[in-house]
């Protein structure tokens, strides 16, 4: 009898607590609007540029090719989260969303009907975007072509399917305070901080995440993972770059997709560079200046030796190749498959020819990005210009890719050999085909 009343009491407590939590967490629906109103042309144009900084088009790319129609999954450790349709279609998209509803989604991660969004949508960063900038993005999205495409619903396993739990996650991990201005830094740096920490949400990929999928705030920009690629660390201590990234190099990389002291923008970053080619030059420079204050905090980049001097020094410092390595299949594969473009003096001309010694895929702690690039190459979208490389998934077996990776690592870096290469290559191939 006593045990029963205790159980009952506990149940009432849990129920009461849940109700109180639900009451606190509950968000009302915001009324539908009939149709988007007219927008000022200049506001739409500003919104287009801001949307490019925010990479909206990348995740919300239509699975059938219609921009912003959504439907593509973002793979997370908790399951696939499908991007929603953010065209102004009244049924499939956000056509009935008022400006207030859109602002709430961007700042609080709550949709028009009052449902909690998953932070695959980076509202933990977008919350830092000023109301004025959100309004411009709204004007831009509401003037896109409506698409009827209904994005698939996201079904995460229990307990992540309980959307209300996101209220707790938000309380723990979302900081709504604006990006603090640093009066000691110049206007460009502060503009960069605003764009990187807010709309650009760079840390969403370039920071590690904890067990609950939140960015590790204690170790920002120390490197993360996305879509089977490493997002390299951007701090001086964690960046794998052979030569520290300067603001100038970052600007070229972000704006043009390639810098000749580093490498081509590849994997998920390729689309980011592509978007940043449509952003005002001053904003890309500001982003570069802010990130360079992490990658090159002492500003020594400009004083560093030139690329040619550094490469010459590296080559001079390299050990004499052990004959057994020269005889490996990796050396033969490199000579026959790679050297046509990556060998000394090879005719690869667009925007210069970065040495493999400078690419962070080859110097990184894991072979993930190098494996991805060898297997699937670099492929600009149909009709688009950009760094290009054929993939070798069809011609090289896992052990052959591993052999060429071993050779690259030895030949072009002074870093330790990568372990378990064949398994790594095999896993990337499996993930790609699943």
């Amino acid at each position, binding site marked *: 009898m006593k045990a029963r009343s205790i159980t009952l009491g506990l149940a009432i407590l849990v129920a009461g607590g849940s109700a109180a939590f639900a009451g606190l967490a509950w968000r009302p629906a915001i009324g539908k609007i009939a149709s988007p109103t007219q927008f000022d042309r200049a506001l739409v144009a500003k919104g287009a540029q801001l949307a490019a900084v925010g990479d909206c088009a990348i995740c919300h790319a239509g699975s059938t090719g219609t921009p912003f129609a959504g439907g593509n999954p973002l793979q997370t450790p908790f399951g696939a989260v499908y991007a929603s349709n953010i065209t102004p279609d009244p049924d499939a998209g956000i056509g009935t969303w008022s400006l207030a509803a859109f602002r709430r989604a961007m700042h609080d991660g709550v949709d028009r009907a009052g449902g909690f969004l998953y932070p695959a949508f980076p509202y933990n960063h977008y919350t830092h975007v000023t109301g004025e900038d959100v309004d411009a993005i709204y004007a831009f999205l509401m003037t896109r072509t409506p698409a009827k495409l209904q994005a698939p619903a996201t079904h995460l396993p229990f307990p992540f399917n309980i959307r209300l739990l996101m209220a707790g996650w938000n309380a723990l991990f979302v900081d709504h305070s604006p990006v603090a201005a640093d009066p000691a830094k110049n206007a460009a740096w502060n503009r960069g901080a605003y764009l990187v920490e807010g709309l650009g949400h760079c840390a969403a990929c370039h920071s590690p995440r904890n067990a609950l999928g939140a960015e590790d705030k204690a170790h920002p920009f120390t490197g993360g993972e996305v879509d089977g690629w490493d997002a390299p660390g951007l701090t001086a201590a964690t960046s794998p770059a052979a030569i520290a990234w300067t603001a100038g190099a970052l600007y070229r990389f972000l704006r043009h997709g390639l810098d000749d002291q580093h490498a081509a923008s590849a994997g998920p970053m390729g689309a980011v560079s592509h978007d940043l080619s449509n952003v005002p030059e001053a904003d890309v420079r500001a982003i570069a200046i802010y990130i360079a204050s992490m990658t090159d905090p002492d500003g020594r980049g400009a004083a560093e030796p030139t690329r040619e001097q550094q490469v010459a020094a590296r080559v001079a410092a390299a050990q004499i190749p052990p004959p057994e390595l020269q005889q490996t*299949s990796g*050396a*033969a*594969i490199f*000579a*026959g*498959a790679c050297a*046509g*473009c990556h060998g000394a003096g090879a*005719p*690869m001309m667009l925007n210069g020819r970065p040495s493999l010694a400078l690419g962070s895929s080859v110097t990184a702690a894991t072979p993930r990005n190098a494996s991805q690039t060898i297997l699937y190459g670099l492929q600009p979208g*149909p009709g688009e210009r950009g760094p*290009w490389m*054929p993939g*070798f*998934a*069809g*011609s*090289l*077996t896992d052990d*052959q890719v591993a052999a060429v990776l071993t050779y690259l690592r030895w030949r072009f870096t002074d870093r330790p050999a990568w372990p378990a290469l064949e398994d790594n290559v095999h896993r990337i191939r499996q993930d790609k085909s699943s």
Partner: protein
Amino acid sequence: MISLIVNGTTHQVDVDPATPLLYVLRDTLGMHGAKYGCGLGQCGACTVMLDKQAVFSCLTPVAVLEGRQIKTIEGLGTIEHPGPLQQAFIDEQAAQCGYCIAGMIMRAQALLERTSSPTEAQIRAQMQPNLCRCGTHIRILAAIRLAADTMRQAAIPGRVQEVSR
């Protein structure tokens, strides 16, 4: 010596392991179907099939080919008995100068061997790496669609008869 299995026949060749397959096909084995275009994997004129995949033979060193099945345009048919894709390219007059055609046919062959009824989007995605400077793309696409129909009607979906050599 390295052994290569080309169109079902094993050849022993004495070449440097880094030598691209294209050079061995043309210079050592005398099979001139695959063409040298750019040597950088950018044009597709050298395309052959390797274990069911279309690959650039100019970027495939023979060091990686031990025990693997190589198929070239010579394996699809003869002048007297062209294979379905070859016949479709003739019927649609898909060649102008013809330099890219062997590569085009081998890349299309790889698609039709795994997908007997490809969609237009699948055909275009598959053929994307191969260039034709004459601009006969529309006829090339028509030929691939025609060959897909022929191969399905022949009741051997996605497959063609191997020509015995």
